[in-house]
């Protein structure tokens, strides 16, 4: 069953004054199945975040269609069962981690008892339980990232979209996030994530899409990656070859 379906989606940005057009995403089609971990890799400006923002409904495609759980992103219900971590997340400075997560639960329709239980479990998992009543403005980048991961997962969504989840995390933080993603997969959740860290993508993804210049150049399954990868030919080599910049 398709959880995320992207059909021939294109997106152009138009600069405000010169009205110059720039293609950010060019005719991308993709479907992500239930219980699948799909990774998107690509250089900066490849269109990864633009695709995610279109799935979230923050921006609209110029052409093509997107469906999340069968609903278009314009329908708020498409986000009812969805968790999202933005790239470099910013949260409200004056709220505590606990208040932020409580908001996430309430907005997603969780009852108070379940919310308290879920918040406690997740904060313990990411190592923020002791800082739960600390204001978010006192958090370091890594702590904010962890709080963001909790915000995305606290209501136990079926679809999780993570934009650069490892950004700003120390090795321990990265390990926690990888374990969390693996745990999500075991529980039948669908995960879409963008990352620059190819090692992580290689380790946890069922399929990997390589993007360049707004186009989805190729999608590899885990088996295909394993077949291609040998001592001289790792994912980095494959990636560079695909985007044609291995000189």
């Amino acid at each position: 069953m398709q959880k995320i379906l992207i059909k021939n989606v294109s997106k152009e940005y138009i600069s405000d004054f010169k009205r110059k057009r720039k293609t950010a995403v060019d005719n991308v089609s993709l479907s992500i199945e239930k219980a699948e971990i799909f990774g998107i890799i690509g250089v900066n400006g490849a269109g990864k975040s633009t695709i995610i923002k279109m799935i979230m409904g923050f921006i609209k495609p110029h052409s093509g269609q997107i469906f999340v759980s069968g609903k278009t992103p314009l329908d708020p219900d498409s986000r009812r069962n969805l968790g999202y971590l933005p790239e470099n997340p910013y949260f409200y400075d004056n709220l505590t981690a606990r208040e932020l997560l409580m908001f996430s639960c309430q907005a997603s329709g969780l009852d108070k008892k379940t919310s308290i239980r879920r918040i406690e479990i997740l904060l313990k998992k990411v190592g923020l339980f002791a800082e739960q009543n600390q204001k978010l403005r006192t958090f370091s980048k890594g702590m904010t990232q962890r709080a963001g991961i909790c915000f995305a997962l606290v209501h136990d969504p079926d679809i999780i979209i993570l934009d650069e989840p490892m950004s700003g995390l120390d090795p321990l933080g990265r390990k926690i996030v990888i374990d969390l993603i693996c745990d999500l997969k075991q529980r039948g959740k669908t995960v879409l994530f963008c990352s620059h860290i190819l090692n992580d993508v290689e380790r946890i993804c069922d399929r990997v899409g390589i993007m360049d210049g707004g186009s989805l150049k190729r999608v590899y399954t885990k088996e295909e990656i394993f077949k291609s990868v040998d001592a001289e030919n790792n994912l980095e080599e494959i990636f560079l070859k695909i985007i044609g910049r291995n000189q």
Partner: protein
Amino acid sequence: MMTRKLFALTILTFKEGVRDRALFGIGLFSLLLMAGSIVVVSMFMRELHKVTVDINLSAITFAGLLLSFFVSINLMSKDIDRYTIYSVLSKPFSRSQYIWGKYLGIMLLIVTAMGILTFCSSLAIWFTKSQYSLYFQGFSWMEFYKAVYAELLMFFLLNALIVFFSTITTSSFITLLFSISTYIAGQTIEEVVLFLKTKHAAEIFMSEGINTIIGIVQYILPNLSVFDLKLQSAHAITISWDYLAAVTGYSIVYSIVLLIMASLIFNKRELR
């Protein structure tokens, strides 16, 4: 479910605003102004109640304006500037629900702040009244509270304007500029129009075009001077309930129209 979601966003906005450091500065300044009114009044020889009411109502208005221009704009525009909006809109909120939730949160903050300031102001007036009871014969608590209520209605409208400007601009500074300009124009437009109708104005040459523009602007801009009842309150002139009902209707209808327009514009906005 929708009410619960909206309530969650309202409370989130309120909590974020109530802990803003600027709020403490604004509150402290206003309280000092009110306490200062007790001292200042003792320097006057007559009409002490007018001075007391005027200073206290001005302190409430000033605090409300600072709160609207700095804390409300922070809560609204910075949400877009700093992309905190992504975390809210990743939840099942429509753009319209976001606008309404934020507005209600801001209004909860304004109502709470004005409630506290009105209480402190009442204490200051009560204390001055007990010290100089002879000078407070013409004072009316009812007219004082009616004036406070009218100020609150003005803030309902002003904050709806701020929310509206936040949806059409891309920076909090521009929202601030638009809001302050509209506030000043809204407070003075009635006077300008009245002046243009006097015989002195007839001597000034003005092109038809400018007259037409002023005529149009008069109907587009909110007339904020209708909410300023300080003078009536200070002189204990009875403010009719009909007048209060009319300005209540004006504020509510204008605010709703602004919020609907803000929702429509925000629905089309790209959040990249």
